[in-house]
């Protein structure tokens, strides 16, 4: 413990000098970034820039090659870190929802409550119904995921993650797989969360969302964290050439 690095302070999630490569292909180079408590940080950048890999490193779904990740006072990259316990404190929402198709909507939400948190079945059920109600899907508890639209599935996935009462929520292109008319319901839920003070890291191609809902926007390219600033500065007065090029393509 004497050699342990200094614990961070205000950051909900702190990343220092994170690198990751697949074979000879380096996808993350020396990333250092803080996600502050209560802030919404949007990660933007061209595809292949490493945004999704960075997000998946944050809860160790991808193992970083070097660098450190701190969740509050807990170092996730320490050799004997309890990764499962840390993941229970970090919610994640995936591009393709990844609901469990063999379980009812309600059981999707209660599975981790009962089998990770050890909550009783009835209490878990009440929690699930409350969380489903909060995303407008209280009447869908007994359905199977396949009986829901993509937008509804993604809102269930958000309810599933929130039911664990995470300290941080990670969104990995949560609206990219949705039909355009279904995007806005999911974005509305995410906006509510952001304004409710949840700490969020959001990989997104929705520049409108990044502009309105983000406290800060980080621009990634070629595995580097190229820019990080307020949405106004990123979108209105970008001076990084790659960022200007990227914005001219997506806006």
């Amino acid at each position: 413990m004497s050699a342990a690095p200094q614990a961070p302070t205000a950051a909900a999630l702190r990343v220092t000098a994170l690198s990751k490569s697949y074979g000879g292909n380096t996808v993350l180079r020396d990333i250092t970034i803080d996600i502050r408590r209560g802030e919404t940080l949007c990660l933007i950048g061209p595809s292949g820039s490493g945004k999704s890999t960075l997000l998946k490193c944050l809860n160790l779904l991808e193992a970083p090659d070097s660098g450190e990740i701190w969740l509050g006072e807990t170092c996730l990259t320490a050799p004997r870190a309890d990764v499962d316990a840390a993941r229970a404190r970090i919610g994640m929402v995936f591009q393709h929802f990844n609901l469990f198709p063999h379980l009812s909507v309600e059981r999707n939400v209660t599975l981790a409550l009962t089998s990770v948190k050890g909550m009783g079945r009835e209490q878990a059920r009440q929690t699930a119904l409350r969380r489903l109600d909060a995303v407008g899907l209280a009447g869908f508890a007994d359905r199977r995921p396949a009986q829901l639209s993509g937008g509804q599935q993604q809102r269930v996935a958000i309810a599933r993650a929130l039911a664990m009462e995470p300290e941080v929520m990670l969104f990995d292109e949560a609206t990219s797989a949705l039909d355009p008319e279904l995007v806005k319901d999911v974005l509305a839920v995410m906006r509510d969360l952001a304004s409710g003070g949840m700490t969020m890291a959001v990989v997104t191609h929705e520049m409108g969302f990044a502009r309105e809902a983000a406290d800060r926007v980080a621009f990634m390219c070629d595995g580097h964290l190229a820019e990080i600033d307020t949405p106004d500065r990123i979108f209105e007065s970008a001076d990084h050439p790659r960022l200007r090029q990227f914005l001219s393509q997506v806006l």
Partner: protein
Amino acid sequence: MALSSSPDLASNALVNTFFDGDLIARTFPRLITEGLLNTVVIASGAIVVGVLIALLAAMLLLSDRWWIRLPARLYVDVFRGLPVIITVMLVGVGLPAAGIRPFGTDPFGYAILAIGIISGAYTAEIFRSGIQSVDPGQLQAARSLGLSYLKAMRLVVVPQGIRRVLPAMAGQFVKDIKESSLVYLLGLAAGQRELYFIAQEEVARTYNSSPLIAAGLCYLSLTIPMTYLVNRLDRRLREGPHRRAPASVEPDLPQPPVPSTAGEPR
């Protein structure tokens, strides 16, 4: 002599040899009261043993580390590659001769073990392919919620993987039922005789093959309904539970089953 009547005689002989109604009727009571139960005991025991071994072997086969995969790979290759009769003899005659007698002198235990070992080798590959066909995002989602690898596999990945291979498993269960007849090789006491043994005794006594037809019908009465049951379960799981389904929805005739040999290498 009466050349014209010889085709009649021949066809009579054919009918009498295979379809002697009296003999079939006399064999049936013993087949049903003694044989059917013993066959079901051996077959279901072998299926349970096979599924348990297969679950373990499939998990090992899915490991990232070669030295964990290796023993499972060897097990699968050896017991899928050996003739069933050799495995049954090695386990049922070889083990007791070597002084390893976990089941004493009861041939049932050895038969269940031998057929279970073979069944497990096939079923392990069926499970492995089913589990591997589950979207990796399912494991990621389960892990992201804090589930350990084993919990995520047990609650999320394996249940989905097994559902996908139910028709292939039905084929394997049919094979297990049929191969239960090989307990015959190990010798059976009165009261232990299964379907084939009873039929074979009758054939030896009467020099008429009709008892084999009777036993065959008994096997079919097990294997065909089981295939249909599993396929129906498969359809049920695919379509989700039918809640408040009207009673008249069930069709009178079962649908043709999915080919149940899908998972068997031939």
